[in-house]
């Protein structure tokens, strides 16, 4: 069941913090350098996220999350470095490929922004249980029906992944080719996906009946199974984050006047 979620309960302080506080951190970390005009602020927020990841003992697990973005950042560097519309000053050249200062700076800015967003979000995702987040949202009036939708995805997807393995094995044992030319691979797609999809859709009927029987559609107020303990740190951290963001906004507005 936890196969899909990246969260692992390690009992750290970050695990215990209220999900909203961590969410607020994500917003602050993304907005501060964007509003503050980048420059030195990107390394500051990136550094903050890395420190938090280390404190939460999640630095190692955050690498795969960020790794995929490197290919994208490299592509951006290549494309913008060579072809950015403002390119004027040549910076260096590799054989016949010429890179320009403006494009590289622009790519650097985008790259830092991506890295910053991913790292701050990793702090949130690796330390927050989705179930806890949904439950807190429901306590604040989020529709329990949609809460159910989100929670049940975390159960259904691993289940479907298991069915998928069975089907791939079954079709291969019947001699279906899953490698070769593009046409062969496209043709293999349908026999692979349709059995899983069919069974998933047919299962929805039984699931709907099961839910209906348990009073899912009732409109009366529902109670919650978990009671969370209040942490003093939550309020303090939230106030600091809001003040920092507000400070950057005020500075920006002030510099525009």
């Amino acid at each position, binding site marked *: 069941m936890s196969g899909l*979620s*990246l969260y692992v309960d390690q009992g750290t302080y970050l695990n215990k913090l209220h999900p909203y506080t961590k969410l607020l951190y*994500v917003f602050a970390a993304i907005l501060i350098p964007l509003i503050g005009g980048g420059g030195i602020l990107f390394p500051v927020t990136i550094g903050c996220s890395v420190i938090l990841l280390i404190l939460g003992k999640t630095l190692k697990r*955050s690498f795969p*999350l960020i790794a*995929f*973005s490197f290919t*994208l950042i490299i*592509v*951006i560097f*290549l*494309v913008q470095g*060579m*072809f950015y*519309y403002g390119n004027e000053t040549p910076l260096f050249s590799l054989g016949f490929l010429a890179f320009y200062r403006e494009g590289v700076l*622009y*790519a650097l800015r*985008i790259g830092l*922004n991506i890295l910053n*967003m*991913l790292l701050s*979000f*990793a702090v949130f*995702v690796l330390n927050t249980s989705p179930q806890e987040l949904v439950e807190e949202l429901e306590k604040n009036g989020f529709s329990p*029906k*949609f809460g*159910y*939708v*989100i929670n049940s*995805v*975390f*159960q259904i*997807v691993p*289940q*479907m*992944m298991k069915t*998928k393995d069975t089907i791939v094995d079954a079709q291969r044992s019947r001699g279906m080719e*899953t490698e070769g030319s*593009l046409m062969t*691979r496209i043709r293999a*797609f*349908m026999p*692979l*996906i*349709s059995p*899983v*999809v*069919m069974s*998933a*859709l*047919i*299962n*929805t*009927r039984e699931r*709907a*009946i099961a*839910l*209906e029987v348990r009073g*899912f*559609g009732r409109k009366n107020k529902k109670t919650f199974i978990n009671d969370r303990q209040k942490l003093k740190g939550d309020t303090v951290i939230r106030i600091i984050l809001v003040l920092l963001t507000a400070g950057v906004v005020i500075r920006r507005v002030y510099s525009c006047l």
Partner: protein
Amino acid sequence: MGNLFKTKLNAATIVLIPACIGINYLGKLFASLLKLPLWLDCIGTCVGACLGGPVIGGICGAINNIIYGLTTGDNITLIYALTSFGIGIAVGITARLGFMETLPKSLVCALAGGLAAVIISTPLNVMFWGGTTGNVWGDAVFAITQANGMPVLLGSFIDEVLVDVPDKLLTIIITFLILKGLPEKIKALYDVDAKVERLD
């Protein structure tokens, strides 16, 4: 026309949403397993849109990206929730208008979904990636347009069209075949005009 957006929010449609999101995951997984140069990550959204209507399609798309963001830590997909939402709505509307009845007609659906994706994604691509989409073929084209001095927005638009429209075309064809194979018993669950006859 009032029927176009009519949605039943009962237990059946609520359980349809997670199933569709699961299908989206599977599509993406199989596409990468077979090393196809397409995403095929919105088959579920299209199935949801055709069965439950535009509203359910839109919700499927949006929640799909939110959960994808939560489970892979990739918060950039969160912004593309807007795109998925648009695809769900567009496909849902065209399906309600009767364009999912035959395979040739369903191409209109594919076009609507593809265009919705292109129109919403292009500004996002320009804002966050400087115009690239992350798909090798599309980005090669983008590099060519930039080398020839075309505006970023136009280059990115062409990049998106080349990647998204064929992707949605195949997605809709697969959706069509899936829906055709679905038993009537299941489809009846989502019929908005169905009436419950009471015997008391």
